[in-house]
């Protein structure tokens, strides 16, 4: 009896949660008489787009609408490809974003949280201890579908995110996920697209030094050494595979093993750079180690756009423009260099466009997608063309990660990630009407007034009774 009393509500809750999205599952939609912005082609002022079973099956002025489709009157509406957040921790609620900004004023970075109850890792004593390295981890394997930012971002028109943890020097591989799905696996578009590298030194944790590396030059030396070790290990493994007999077997090293695979797969290595000096340093580094890289952060890229273009390196541009910290000392004397960066960072996208650098935007820990679009408007004010802004949020983002054959534009055969608005995407008054992720229709949910608002009581209860340990 007792068991039934407990189990029944749990079952009901479980059914309810599954049933809600499944209640309206017609996978065929047609949006008719809408303004369609395919990004890869000219704007269709009055056209129809058909989404069938998760894919875009027709776009144009005269397309046949399958009889089973739910027809949406698109009069007065504009249809865009779903937006892509090119680097974020959405879906990884417990992690922190990769940090590119070195212009952040004073104060030590927040302390790393030691794993609860776990054994303390001894301080690293050199590159051989592989500090801050978990490159075998994939964001796709750690997704939490309950992260409330998924709904929040989706409601603002983001259908896809490049997800990566920022914890450690090699925090793990970035994955591309669609922002809807019941199970983590439903969300994954590509489980490994890039290898983010952070150059933050090891942090002190619980009053103890975490050891090597404790400086930027130490981190660079470590990253350099571990890539050399990877190249060496690859050659040793090849030689051994040819004739194992009579040879000492190669040593297994989890970090090097994962890096070797990532490099063999031709994944992008993401390197942080804010200003001109850091950018040139990273471009040199990439050339020396023969890495295929993208830069992330890039607030000061306006002063080094031509050099980036010459190296044909794409950029992931943080729209979290540098700001005077809210708790800054009003008497503090800030250098002209800092003030200039804060003033000019929003002009970077326009400068990159002019220099023909491929770039995508990322939210970089901004708390709401509204902030992303508000900040983007500063870039538009600083000369960024709207079509270039849209490309950066869609096709170019997809292209940088090698997914432009399935994402980033409204073309037949692509994944049905679609955004429907009642006006130009970048107008302040425009609202999002509908969002399709993998062909599934979502109505936007109003953003909570406080981004850190607690989940509603019922959900908390549900989780508590759901028997989570």
């Amino acid at each position, binding site marked *: 009896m007792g068991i039934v009393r407990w189990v029944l509500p749990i079952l009901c809750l479980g059914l309810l949660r599954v049933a809600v999205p499944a209640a309206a599952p017609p996978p065929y939609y047609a949006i008719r008489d809408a303004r369609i912005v395919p990004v890869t082609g000219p704007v269709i002022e009055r056209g129809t787009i058909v989404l069938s079973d998760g894919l875009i099956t027709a776009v144009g002025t005269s397309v046949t609408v399958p009889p089973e489709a739910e027809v949406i009157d698109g009069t007065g509406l504009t249809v865009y490809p779903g937006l892509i957040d090119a680097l974020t921790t959405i879906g990884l609620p417990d992690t922190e974003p990769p940090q590119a900004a070195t212009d952040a004023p004073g104060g030590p970075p927040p302390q790393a949280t030691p794993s609860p109850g776990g054994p303390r890792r001894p*301080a690293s004593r050199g590159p051989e201890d592989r500090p801050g390295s978990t490159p075998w981890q994939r964001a796709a394997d750690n997704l939490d579908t309950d992260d409330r930012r998924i709904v929040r971002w989706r409601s603002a028109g983001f259908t896809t995110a490049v997800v990566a943890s920022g914890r450690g020097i090699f925090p793990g591989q970035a994955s591309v996920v669609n922002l809807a799905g019941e199970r983590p696996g439903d969300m994954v578009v590509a489980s490994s697209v890039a290898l983010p590298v952070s*150059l933050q030194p090891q942090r002190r944790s619980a009053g103890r*030094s975490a050891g090597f590396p404790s400086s930027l*030059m*130490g981190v660079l030396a470590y990253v*350099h050494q571990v890539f050399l070790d990877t190249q060496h290990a690859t*050659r040793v493994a090849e030689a051994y595979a040819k004739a194992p007999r009579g040879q000492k077997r190669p040593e297994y090293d989890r970090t090097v093993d994962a890096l070797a695979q990532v490099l063999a797969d031709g994944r992008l290595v993401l390197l942080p750079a804010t200003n001109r000096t850091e950018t040139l340093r990273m471009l040199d580094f990439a050339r020396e180690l023969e890495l295929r890289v993208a830069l992330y952060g890039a607030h000061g890229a306006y002063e080094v756009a031509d050099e980036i273009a010459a190296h044909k390196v794409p950029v992931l541009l943080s729209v979290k423009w540098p700001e005077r910290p809210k708790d800054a000392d009003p008497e503090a004397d800030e*250098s002209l260099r800092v003030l200039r960066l804060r003033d000019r960072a929003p002009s970077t996208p326009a400068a990159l466009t002019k220099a023909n650098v491929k770039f995508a935007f990322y939210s970089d820990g901004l708390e709401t997608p509204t902030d992303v679009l508000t900040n983007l408007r500063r870039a538009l004010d600083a000369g960024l063309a709207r079509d270039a802004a849209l490309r950066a949020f869609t096709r170019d983002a997809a292209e940088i990660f090698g997914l432009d054959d399935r994402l980033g534009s409204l073309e037949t055969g692509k994944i049905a990630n679609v955004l429907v608005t009642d006006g130009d995407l970048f107008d302040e008054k425009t609202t999002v009407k509908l969002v399709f992720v993998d062909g599934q229709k979502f109505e936007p949910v109003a953003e909570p007034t406080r981004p850190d608002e607690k989940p509603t009581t019922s959900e908390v209860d549900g989780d508590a009774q759901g028997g989570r340990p």
Partner: protein
Amino acid sequence: MTRQLGTRSKRVLIALTAALAWGTARVPAHAQAASDTVVIRDATILTASHGRIEQGSILVRDGKIAAVGPSVDTPGGATVIDGSGLFVTPGLIDCHSHMAIDGGVNEGSISVSSMAGTDDVLDPTTVEIYRAAAGGVTTANILHGSANAIGGTNAVIKLRWGKDAEGIRFEGAPPGIKFALGENPKRSNSSLQPGTERRYPATRMGVIDVVREAFTDAVEYQAKWRRYEAGDTAGVPPARDLKLEPLVEVLEGKRLVHAHSYRSDEILQLLRLAEEIGFKIATLQHVLEGYKVADEIAAHGAGASTFSDWWAYKVEAFDAIPYNAALMTERGVVVSINSDSAEEVRHLNQEAAKAMRFGGLSEEQALQLVTLNPARQLQVDERVGSIDVGKDADLVLWKNHPLSVYAVAQKVFIDGQLYFDREEDLARRAALEKEKQELLAKEKARREPDDKKKAPRVPTVETTRRARPRWEQQP
């Protein structure tokens, strides 16, 4: 050691003039001379190699000193600078500096950090470079800190303010590495966090042991590569080790060792260890007790780069005397005076001058402490360090004698290009201040609407409480 700020505040004359220039960013317009040919006429020239030329002239062409003497030809189109009443010296060289380093001067986590290097993290945009140039310095040895028995590699730079990291490197200067002895690497003066393991080494014996052990590894690593390169071992080349590579270069005489040291006993310890293993110490840095073992330093062929009168900031720095530079010079050591400080670098000339007062060095000998001698120590004396035909045109034009307290650098040339001009600097300050105020105002205007929205419309309990004077508050 890395110097604590504010230990000596008395010497502010030059510091003040230079410190006010806080502008940054790209090469200022004035940093380019009107033409590549410059003639400085009728100045008092202190050559640092062949004495003083009263009413002399210097011809600079293509970044080099083309002629120097009582009179030189003035080619058509040359920029002519009237030097009458002014002094010219070679650009000063600071053999120990930690400026322009991004993200930490020390990789202090381990006792051998030779895999790290300041050359990887140069920040050419730091205003310290400009301020040092304003003090007449044109070349600096950018060293890793002194937390490790064997520290990171260095970078020798020219203070080409406005250029990128690649552009400030002293091309062709031999690479170096930092060693450190005594209290810093054994961590005597750093507080230990509770629960932290004490790092090895904790004694001077241990420091020497760490160096010996590292070189034992390096010798083995070198042999492994030699065997491979000689074709004795087939297959995959040995794994590269960024920690040992610089040490092999030291063994092969391709990398200069700059060893932070204070006490005479540790100096002898290191010289003997180096001789035993078979490498040379290029410079002993700080070397406050060098006067006690000057003969041994000279016999080894090491240079000594010291302070004029900076000491007693820790126990191992107690037994110091202002005659150190002069006494070591007398015993045949190549001596330089360094700054180890972004402040002191702005008046290195006066630091050198103290050796005339304490120890009786001649004007030229004193000047050499911050020009030709550090150039010799860094093995760049073919290029810089004196005013001789064929050398780089790194020149400083001074108002008043450069070894007096009244000296103020007026113009500083590096490779024949003007990188500091006092008149232009003074003229530019107002514009920079204006730009700063405008940027601040712009930012404030952007922030203000937000602030208003967030400002509480009615006083809250907290604001009321804060508004009450302290003495009225109930305990």
